[in-house]
């Protein structure tokens, strides 16, 4: 594989991949918050 094919492939997939994984993580956080919402009474007990 030549240098520029390597560079552009890694750059494009790297940027897209990083953005995609973090977007999925943000959805995961929203899902966790939806399933396990904050409850003041629980927090006070804890």
């Amino acid at each position, binding site marked *: 594989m030549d240098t520029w094919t390597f560079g552009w492939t890694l750059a494009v997939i790297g940027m897209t991949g990083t953005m995609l994984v973090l*977007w999925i993580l943000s959805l995961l956080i929203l899902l*966790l918050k939806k399933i396990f919402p904050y409850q003041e009474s629980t927090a006070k007990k804890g």
Partner: protein
Amino acid sequence: MESALVSGLQGLVLGILNLTPDHVIMLLIASALLYLGIKKGYEPLLLVPIGFGAILVNIPLAEMMGKEGFLRFFYDVGVLTEVFPLLIFIGIGAMTDFQPLLENPKIILLGAAGQFGIFLTLLLALAVGFDKLDAVAVAIIGACDGPTAIYVSSKFAPHMLGAVSVAAYSYMSLVPLIQPPIMRALTTEKERMIVMGAIRQPVSKTTKILFPIAVTIFASILAPKGAPLIGTVMLGNLMKESGVVDRLKSASENEIANIVTLLLGLCIGATMEADKFLRGQTLLVLALGFIAISLDTAVGVLFGKVMCLLTGGKINPLIGAAGISAFPMSARVVQVEGQKYNKKSYLLMPAMSANAGGQIGSVIAAAVMLSVLQGMGIVGG
């Protein structure tokens, strides 16, 4: 008797006779690192052992990195095996509070944009003639995260570990000087004055405990080569949030982190032997490292502008600059910069969210990079 005395005295002057101008230059560079760490307070925990390690390794005939040298032992055990940066990651996870990010998860995207400097610098490094894996090691300075830079460079370009690590830690400490001019250049005064509304949403303890487990599973499945990086950070964070292993958490963020930081610093310094460090390539690494962190900031701010546009002006683009891993330094820079233009603007909390996103983002970017390299067949599986 006379010849024995002469031989004995020769032993005392051999070091002086073998001292070259390159050794002297390296001793001066090592002293400068010690000065920056001790007098200026720039990342002293790393720069002091790095500077001292560089002194030790540049003493003629001491052979600290020779086959039986004591620094060689620590280097082989901790750096070549990548164990030292991973142990530090456990400590970082134990010290990091992801609450600001959990309160405002959309901001995590700024943590992704803040890593684009890595990939753009990769192209620049290739353009100036670095080999593929050397270019990867240089580009990772843009993660703005010392252990990540050490992990990746020790894996792919151990001969550049000294230059990459010194660049990474030096620029991290210079974030308050590097970022503000870029933030000002890329935003209008109107944008800098935007007051962000309160976004605090309390998070349950269950969510905080499940977060590191879920991140480890999902992110590691998507980028398996980065599992050691992601897993160690999240293990530390799980110990912190679970609250049931205080002794382990305490050991991770104190004793283990301190011992490993000392040994890692010495080992990095030990890679700064004159014949390896005094090259034109080192200056290129330092220049590209600076560009990488500047590009991180620029892309982060530009992405902040896009989010500002999409949310109808509810997001201050300045917080995009905090999408890097320098935590919480970068968030503080954003807060100070915002206050300069609007005294009613309190950007610290949203900037902390972006900054926490940048911490995860840097690890994810490295993990993605490693997995893509594996997929391309550049590195073994």
